[in-house]
């Protein structure tokens, strides 16, 4: 049975590294659900959160293959660990006069913000787990969703220093 697996990957902040990771997933026929990359507190290191649709048997192979990339410093499969998982979505909906209050109320239930409004539309910004974003989009279905963009998941294990991901030698490992 395939299910989403979440990997936190630290890579060297060098040109072409994203291409190496993406190329690996293509070549090994791994199905990327979402891939996020951004900076960390260390300018030499970038951090990726990759969600892959795969089986429990295949997940360790993905981890091992990521490690084989010379620019990959650290890989952690956080799927079964206590983890803070967040994504951000922008949702543009049709907002005729009669619907506006309902949309605003719905957004507030989800602790989402209205970040843009025009005579025809409203744009909602929501942050949360993928499940929360899914539910808001579903609830807004009635209001006629025009456009959705999601960042994909960012993940960080819960707790303090233990299990934190750093460049070796930069503390924490």
């Amino acid at each position: 049975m395939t299910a989403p697996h979440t990997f936190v990957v630290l890579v060297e902040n060098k040109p072409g590294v994203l291409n190496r990771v993406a190329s690996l997933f293509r070549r090994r026929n791994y199905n990327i659900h979402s891939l996020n990359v951004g900076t960390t507190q260390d300018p030499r290191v970038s951090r990726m959160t990759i969600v892959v649709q795969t089986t429990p048997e295949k997940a360790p192979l993905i981890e091992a293959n990521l490690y084989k990339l010379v620019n990959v410093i650290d890989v952690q499969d956080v799927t079964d660990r206590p983890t803070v998982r967040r994504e951000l979505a922008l949702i543009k909906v049709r907002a005729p006069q009669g619907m506006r209050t309902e949309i605003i109320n719905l957004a507030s239930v989800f602790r989402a913000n209205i970040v843009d409004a025009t005579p025809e539309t409203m744009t909602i910004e929501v942050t949360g787990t993928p499940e929360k974003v899914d539910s808001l989009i579903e609830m807004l279905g009635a209001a006629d969703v025009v456009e959705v963009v999601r960042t994909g998941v960012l993940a960080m294990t819960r707790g303090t220093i233990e299990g934190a991901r750093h460049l070796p030698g930069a503390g924490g490992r």
Partner: protein
Amino acid sequence: MPPRMTGARMLWESLIREGVEVVFGYPGGSIMPVYDALLDYPQVRHVLTRHEQGAAHAADAYARVLRDQGKVGVAMATSGPGATNLTTGIATAFMDSSPVVFITGQVSAEYLGTDAFQETDVTGVTLPITKHNFLVTRAEDIPRVVREAFYIARTGRPGPVLIDLCKNAQNDEADFVWPTEVQLPGYRPPTRADEAALAEATRLLAEAQRPVILAGQGVLMSGAMPELRALAEKADIPVAMTLLGLGSLPLTHPLALGMMGMHGEYFVNMAIQHADLLIALGMRFDDRVTGRLEAYAPHARKIHVEVDPAEINKNVPVDVALLGDLKTVLRQWLPRVAEAQHPAWRAQIQAWREDTRQHDVVQKARRNGRGPLRGAEVIQRIWETTANDDVIIATGVGQHQMWTAQYYRFPQPYRLVTSGGLGTMGFGLPAGVGAAVAHPDKEVWVIEGDGGFQMTQAEMATAVQEGLNIKIVILNNNYLGMVRQWQELFYERRYSAVLLHNPDFVKLADAHGIPARRVTERREVDAALAFAREQQGPVLLEFRVPPEDNVFPMVTTSDPLHEMIRRPEEEPHVERADWAGAAP
């Protein structure tokens, strides 16, 4: 004050510091500064091949036969077509984990991405077929990149690394600073197995009644031949080998079984299928050795000793993984391994072995002296002639390759050079060039088919120019033999695009100034082999062999390993080689 010099000089200074004595290559526009600087480094031997693919295979073979000395092969080419011509060789080295550093010229950094003359995105093209690659745009980065490239190529699971060198980086001057250490925070191949896994492996071995070791090329790459032998002898474990693992234990050793897999002998595959424990050493359960996966070694628990964690559970689920350098791990493990004897198991394997001998039609044909000369028989005779002389054998890919694996009884490691994983036709001659450059004191025999030979035959000129001691053997059946065999067996003998109208190979050799002979009869074989051995420098022997001979035994790709097409009980009728349509 560090010395100031051009990037081109820095490259040679760096290569020399990495112990490079030989470079195989082909010049061109974007690598000209490097070739100009080469003239100032006479201590480096440059071998000019006739095609970049030849340079790549030669460097690969050079690295394989000198693995015991820790040598890394180096091949060099220009940008664009020079680099793309290397790619078949790079992929070959990658599949067979061969430590080679490839250096390609690239257009100046300011022209990158402009589709300049002979510009190809070489780091992009080679990304999936290298262990790692570098694009160098600044001269000052060259020493560090070379240091890292060689370190990555030779350590862990070895493999090819490519350095794409922009022309401005070759021309610009900078301070030459040789790095004292390699800083690769993300590159940490495992070295030593963990204790819990060792304990579990020890327990599984103690419980085994029918153990078999599967020795792969990792044994040779790690130099673990003494440890393999010690393990086999201490716990009385028969040793089957992969194609690239041949030579890891001499076939004269009583525990040595020989090659496993699609064209492995019956008794070897039977041993694997009936084993209750497989100990896989530096091999990767390739589809050519497992047959149908669901039916592979169904009674066996499995211990996998491997340096590459991504090979664990990839094809075959294993019970214990010992991750690390093979030699190190076996040294950790050996003191814990209990002495054992498995006489019943050895007797069973011996019975299968006797059964195998009954089927050896090549031996029968030779005893009887009847029927046409056969390809396998030629190999057998080369083996008998050279057995005591520590020769190196380089092959192409196909029937002749499998006959070589079956009938040449490799007594030593690093003496068979063959393309296993990629199965690259035409590998033989350029590989022979690389092996002969590496070991000028040894005889190098290139065994090729008529099809594969023609793919890279231009390297005959290289062999002549370099005065290499290469004995070229062509088993000429006027067919692409292995493809024809598959068409015979699986496509109802519908022969599609396999018939070859060949040139006169003896005249072709003659045009190169290479002495050559054609052999059509059994009684001519010994004289031809003696003639070849008398020659200094390259020599070519063409053996006319039957067009429709097959490699047996054979496991088809969809069958379990023990369901083999055996050799026929009686010698099959095979047509003579001098049939209508063949060249003179």
